[in-house]
């Protein structure tokens, strides 16, 4: 309390002496000691969806630092818990740290709405590995880049797969009420048309008991489910469907295209499940990514880890090239055009920040023998 008084007194004198601005943010040795930020849910309920992406970036940076011991790059994390109300402060904080020249994230669409507006002001280039809301690219943000196809590419593709490849007559449509899941199903439904939809239901995040929905699916007679949502719920849902004797096929987006879907659901139950992904099948390079990731984090890479790894490597490539400012890196992204080693996607961006539609290939993967096996590229029409 005495300190309090002292502080208060000091304030009075302080008035004029505001001049001692932040200490040496030296601009000397340009491309060393720079930071790459990762922004998303690292704790809280949705952390499972974004921690893999953070790990991907972590892996990329530590591999880079291994090769460039004299001039390293640092990882800085911003844990928004995925919620827009925490995003503002963290984004501001990231913007103020001038050493941060690149941002991977934000992870979710909601927080992106808040954070990207702030990044845009600070000219901090950001690539999201996972926020797929289409409208994000229409806000006029110059720094916004999306490392994946948005809901408009994946939803219809999944629907076309169900309609044209699987030739299903009836499909049950379910979404988890997240921006991602709802966006996906909204777009898919446009392709299905009303006649094909046997029924619709909604699940919620954190839900663990799907008895009601399972019953509805079973009585609807649908043999195909399109599920817009994430592994956390989809795996349980599928498992409960199987426990109640449902034998059809579940089709989902990239939100379920991860190893947890396989391991949590169990090989037998998950067999035959289809996950679409706006990413080409594994190249040989992908092999080392999985192994490296597993070595470093003792778990299998999960959703978006590969994308985030590739995106971080793009920034690292830019930094290696001597692009040491935010503006330079943003320009660098504008002209980038190469395939990522882990995801196999060719990264080339349009002015809006969307991936070049020509690069957005959507593939169908099938769960087979405990792995996601590439099945085929889904035709674009």
């Amino acid at each position, binding site marked *: *309390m005495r300190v*309090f*008084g002292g*502080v*208060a*007194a*000091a*304030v*009075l004198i*302080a008035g004029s*002496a*505001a001049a*001692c*601005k*932040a*200490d040496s943010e030296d601009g000397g040795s340009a491309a060393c000691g720079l930071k790459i930020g990762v922004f998303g849910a*690292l*704790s809280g309920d949705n952390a499972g969806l974004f921690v893999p992406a953070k790990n991907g970036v972590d892996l990329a940076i530590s591999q880079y630092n291994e090769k460039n011991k004299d001039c390293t790059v640092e990882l800085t*994390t*911003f*844990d928004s818990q*995925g*919620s*827009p*109300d*925490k995003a*503002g*402060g*963290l984004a*501001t*904080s990231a913007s*103020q740290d001038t050493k941060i020249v690149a941002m991977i994230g934000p992870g979710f*669409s*909601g927080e992106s*709405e*808040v954070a990207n*507006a*702030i990044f845009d*002001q600070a000219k901090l280039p950001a690539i999201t590995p996972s926020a797929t*809301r289409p409208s994000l690219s229409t806000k006029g943000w110059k720094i916004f880049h999306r490392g994946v196809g948005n809901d408009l590419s994946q939803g219809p593709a999944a629907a076309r797969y169900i309609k044209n490849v699987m030739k299903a007559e009836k499909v049950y449509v379910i979404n988890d*009420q*997240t*921006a991602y899941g*709802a*966006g996906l199903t*909204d777009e898919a439904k446009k392709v299905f048309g009303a006649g094909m939809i046997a029924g619709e239901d909604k699940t*919620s995040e954190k839900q663990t008991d799907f008895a009601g929905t399972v019953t509805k699916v079973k009585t609807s007679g649908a043999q195909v489910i399109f599920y817009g949502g994430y592994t956390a719920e989809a795996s349980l849902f599928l498992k409960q469907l199987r426990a109640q004797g449902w034998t059809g096929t579940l089709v989902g987006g990239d939100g379920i295209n991860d190893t947890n879907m396989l391991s949590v659901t169990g090989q037998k139950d998950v067999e035959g499940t289809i996950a679409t992904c706006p990413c080409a099948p594994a190249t040989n390079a992908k092999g080392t990514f999985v192994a490296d990731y597993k070595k*470093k*984090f*003792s778990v299998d890479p999960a959703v978006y880890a590969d994308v985030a790894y590739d995106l971080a490597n793009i920034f690292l490539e830019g930094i290696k090239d001597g692009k040491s400012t935010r503006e330079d890196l943003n320009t660098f992204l504008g002209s980038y055009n190469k395939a990522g080693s882990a995801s196999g996607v060719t990264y080339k961006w349009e002015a809006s920040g969307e991936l070049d539609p020509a690069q957005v290939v959507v593939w169908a993967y099938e769960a087979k023998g405990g792995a996601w096996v590439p099945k085929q590229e889904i035709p674009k029409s």
Partner: protein
Amino acid sequence: MSALRERLRISNLPKPARYSLGALGLVFLFLLPNKWFYEYLGIPLGFAYIPLYTTKNDMASVLFICTWIILLSLGLNVVVGYAGLLDLGFFGFFAVGAYVVALLTSPESKLLTEYNWLESPWPWLVAVPIGIALSLLAGVLLGWPTLRLRGDYLAIVTLGFAEMIRIVAKQQDWILNGDRGIPEVGHPPGSVGGEPLFSFDAKPYYWLALCVIILAVFLIRNLVRSRVGRAWVAIREDEDAAELMGVPTFRFKLWAFAIGAAVGGLSGTLWAGQANFVNSTTFSLENSILVLSAVLLGGAGNIAGAILGGFLVIYIPEWLRSVGDVFGLPETVTVGGSTYDISPTSLRFAIFGIVLIVVMIFRPQGLWPNRRRAAEIQHRKKEVAVGE
């Protein structure tokens, strides 16, 4: 606690000294978000680190979060602390305030785009009173049928109410637009040199919220020190006796609910103005619980306690984010081949949980309790009676 003693001593000072001390305190509060302020004070600057300054999150934003949580705990303190009504769903009123502002001020609100009820977005300032009024109305509507219920039943009903609001907010095809939310929410008016004063920087919002808190504290104090406050405490102490002494208990309980709700709604309107984006994920039950912990951690039934509690529940976890930087703590540990994340960032809620337990064990009446309440608990300690 020394803070309490100090407070008592300050209140013994002559008026001019007290006022200037108060003014100094205010200046201090207004300077808090500035980094240069800490540097000027000469608090050791390590590796771009200042002990009180949150390095992993923008200090002004942290302080702004503190302010709207403080407003919430001030509101909840009326309900729980004074009137003794256990409300587990207080964040619902915050949601009402926030959504009203978002719906009325955003150009992407469905009121404009789908229902065509509005011609153009309304200014923030106009939306705020409407938001407060509707939160108050929500409080009355919830309280009217439920305030006859006894303590713990009331708790579950209020909790249900907040969950119901969240579920409605979650519906994508409804007016609140679910998880996709409502972007481009209006900001408070005002500009400096052509630049809008309230845009993305949290500092002006913090200052604005600080002023609102001062006003709220002043008004709540008026209430607490009047017949209304006495009625609330009487209801908390012994509802039947209060009624038999001529206190219209139901009416005053409803008032407590309504006032709490209005303050909660006000907090929501401020937050929406700054957040720029409102969606359903913010209104989870955890937040209601957080505000309740704020009130009880600080000391229920005391305005200063509610403020302290509201500040700490936000500041401690945020500050813990920075702690790792300071002491160079390891972020992960590997045991038997598996790596575990032990950074203060990811464990901060666990640490916060421990803080809650420890504080309650050693100061069950809260950190800064009402003097009388503290005395009462001291008294109870001596009794042999078995706890309820």
